[in-house]
Structure formats: C-alpha cells, structure tokens
C-alpha cells in the first residue's frame, strides 16, 4: 500500500514544484490543477470516495476556472510582469520562510499522539456522511460555500476595477 502512497506523493509534489519553477503562467496554473488531482488521489487511496469526488468537482471544475480567469484578467501593468532575475537576497529570504514553515509543521505532526497500530479505515456510507454534514457540521459547510463565492466575486471585482482605470490609459 505504501508504494501507491509514495507514487501519489511524488506525483503531487513534482507537479507542484514544476508549477513554481515555470515562467509560463498558464502552464504553471495547469500544473497546479494537476497537483489538486494528486490531492484527490490521496483521498481515494484513503478510501474516502465522497471527499475525493467533491475535491475534483469543486477544485478542478470551478476553482481552476477562477484561477485561470484571475490569471487572464489581472495582468495589471508592465512592471508587474517583468520578473527580476533571482538575486541572492530573494533566495535567502525564500529559504528562511520555507524553513520556518517546515519547523512548525514538523512540531505539530510529532506532537500529536498518533495511534501507532493501523486501525481499519471506517467505511461509512455517503448517507451517514450526509447526515453528519447536515447535522453538526452544517455551519462549516455554509462557511466553505461563502468562501468560494467570495473568491469568484473577488475576481469579478478585480476585473471590474481594471476596466475602470483602464479607460484612462487606454490608447
């Protein structure tokens, strides 16, 4: 089972890394979407079909469109795009930030008392999942919905503002 897990992990991390490295924004956006697929694969491996399909439906279906629209619509102006060559200062600060995040994550993982013995993954049907979602966790579900709409509205507002100030400097 670990082989499959390792394979999925490598795929997800690889696509995320390449996404960062590429200069071509559209390619990196698409590779980001590929890494979301990797995430869904994790859920499938863990046997949580519902979450995996929800992840694919929400992220790859809708959020990818928002990301691509955002990339298209918000090319604000000339300076923004000209990416300066990688100077030493920037590399160092990037490393610093990466290190701090790694440390915090490591502490959290090792601090939690994980049950060593692998317990059988509980197979709960979608109906019980639904009951849980609609029952105690209804609030969380609504909040997630609100976040997604906010993201979409944000893109529209950004595009709208671009239209406003672009009228002055349009040739």
């Amino acid at each position, binding site marked *: 089972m670990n082989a499959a897990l390792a394979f999925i992990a490598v795929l997800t991390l690889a696509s995320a890394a390449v996404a960062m490295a590429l200069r071509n924004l*559209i390619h990196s956006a698409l590779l980001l979407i590929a890494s979301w697929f990797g995430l869904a694969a994790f859920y499938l491996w863990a046997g949580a079909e519902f979450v995996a399909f929800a992840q694919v439906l929400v992220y790859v279906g809708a959020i990818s469109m928002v990301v691509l629209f955002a990339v298209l619509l918000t090319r604000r102006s000339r300076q923004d795009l000209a990416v300066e060559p990688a100077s030493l200062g920037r590399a160092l600060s990037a490393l610093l930030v990466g290190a701090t995040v790694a440390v915090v994550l490591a502490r959290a993982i090792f601090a939690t008392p994980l049950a060593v013995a692998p317990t059988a993954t509980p197979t709960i049907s979608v109906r019980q999942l639904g009951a849980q979602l609609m029952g105690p966790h209804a609030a969380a579900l609504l909040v997630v919905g609100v976040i997604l709409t906010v993201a979409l509205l944000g893109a529209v507002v950004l595009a709208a503002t671009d239209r406003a100030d672009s009228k002055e400097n349009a*040739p």
Partner: protein
Amino acid sequence: MSVSDLSSLGSPGGSHVRAVHDEFHGDLLEVSMGPHHPSTHGVFRMIVTLDGETIVKLKPVFGYLHRNHEKLGENTSYLGSMPYTDRLDYLSSMTNNWAYALAVEKLAGQPVPERAEYVRVILAELTRLLNHTCLAGFLMQDCGCSGTPLMYAFREREKILDLFESLSGSRMMCNYQRFGGCRVDPSADWLDGAKKLTDGYGAFLDEFETLLTGNEIIMARTQGVGRLSPALAISAGVTGPMLRATGVNYDLRKVDGYGVYPRFDFRVPLGDHGDVYDRYMIRVLEMRESIKILSQALAGIPAGPIMDPKAKLRGFRPKAGEAYGRIEGPKGEIGFFLISDGSPNPYRYRIRPPSFINLTILEDMCLGQTVADAVIILGSVDIVLGEVDR
C-alpha cells in the same frame, strides 16, 4: 493588451517576456468578417471593431465582384445588355430583365401587347416568391438552424426554377424579355404548371411558418435586433420590404402602377418596429400577396401576340434622349437610367441597385449589437453581391 500580446504570456519557454501594454478587456478586438466568410452571402467584407461582444465600429468593404457592368453596357448594343442584366441580382433575373426592358421602352416609346404585360407580371411575382423564399432560408441559416429551413426553401425554389427553365431555356440566366414584349410565348401547359405551383405554395408557406414564425428562439434572436426608424429609412433611400418593415407605405406596384398591376387587387403589408423579425415577416406576407396576384393574373391572361409586331430586334436605335424607368424588384426599387444619342449603343447605362443602397445604413443598425446580431442584420438586408458591386 491586444490579444496577440496576451498570448505572449503563455509562449513556450517564456524566456523573453514581450512588452505587454494595457488591460485585456480595455482593448478593442478588430475582426475582419469576409470576404470569404460563411455568412456574408457572397464576397462582402465587414471590418468589425468589437468591445467584448458588442460592435463599436463596422466598416463594410465591397467591390470584390465589381465587373464594371455599366462600362460593358456602353460598349454593347441595347439587346446585347439584356443577358447581362440576368447577372445583376442573380436570384431575380426576370425582374432585372423587366426593369431594363421597361426603361428602354420608356426611352423609345415602344408599346407592349396585353399578353406580354400579363406574362411579365406572372414572371415578376414568381421571382418575388423565389427571392423571398431564398431570403427566409438564408436568414434562418444565419440564425443557426442547421440547414433545415434552407433546404425547404430550396425545394420550393427548384420548382419555380424548373418553370423558368421550361419557358426561357435557363434556370437563372433567363434573358427572356425583349423591348416590346417577351421572347417566347408561354404554352398552355406551362400556364397550368404555374397554376399548380401557385396553388401548392400556400401549403408550403403554412408549413414554413409553423416551423419558424412562432419559434421562441427565432423571435428572441430577431425581435428588437437591427431596429430602423422610418425617417432614417426614407432619407437613406431604403426601398422594398426593408422600407415597408419600418411602416412606410411605399410599394412601386401601387405608386407607379406600371405594367397591368392596377388590375389586380392585392394588399401591401406594413411593419411597426423595423427590426429583423419584421423584415422576415413582411417578406413572408408579401409572398402570400404574390400568390393572390399570380392566381388572378393566370386566370385573366388574354390571348394575343407576345411581342409587338413593329418591335425591331436588331439595329434598335432609339431617338436621342434619356429615361429613368424603375420597378418594384424583390429587393427594392431597381431602376435603369439610359441616355441614348441615336447610336445602337446607349451613351450612358446606369443601374439603380436596391441592395447596394439598402446597405448605406448597415452600420447604423449594427452599432451596439453583438457579432451574432450583425450576421443576422446583414442577412435581413438581403444583399446579392452581383447587384451590389455591379
């Protein structure tokens, strides 16, 4: 940012980042539709400037089919120009012939026998049926029906063209009218064939209308699109069904009363909004009126000579002078302005092309509409490039 720069964003390698100026949607997209475009009805080109989907500027460009028809007219005899008039509006050759013959007869004061006048009315109304059926088919094709109304329209058009072929010898290039009458006398069974076609045409129109006129998508696509005001239409010299769709009551068959039209009773349909739907409906209603005229003319056609005996075929030299004759063609007022200086060739041979002049206000109708509407508005103007470019 103009679109071409936009894609630099994604160019492979991306090592060089091309200068990218202002915003994506702030930029106007200039699209050239034509001259080779599926919905411009021939070699007609529109340079359309788009802001998103709405049209900001539309510049028609034509002249791709310009053969300088009028210079040809000056170097050919009066009779020699008759077959060239078939090539003007190649969907209605009989009305082109009649307009030219009418103008020459007006120039030379040539009388026309009774039977020839009746035959001319019959052929003109058959051409009107043919032309309006074709227009309805092409317009619906532009709206997106995948060929069905067009094929029904062409099925009926073939029947009319078979009538023309059995009379004049050719389906579209009839070269049938002469100064002072017609070339061939229609036989009795030709007239029966025409009667059978006219009787069956009402049923086709009913089927066509049930398919299209009540169709919600067609109504949504065409109502309120390409609106034209009566005042602008009159000032812009718009004539024919497009003018009557704006509500102006002006039909040359009633105004000039040329030929024997005053003997037939038929009505002139008028629209109220002057949009694409009105232009389509006016043409359909006009077809129903043409059927009425046809049945009256076919019933009342007298016997007698088809050609005025004194009419000269060759060596036709009208006295010096000029004349402007016009008739109500399917697309509008088609007129011929002839100046003769006594020689067998006309000194000046001018055609008043209805579809060329109806295009004057194409831009006014398209501003503010979307690309899909511009295609339909052009379709509803009913242009044929042979006549526009001459």
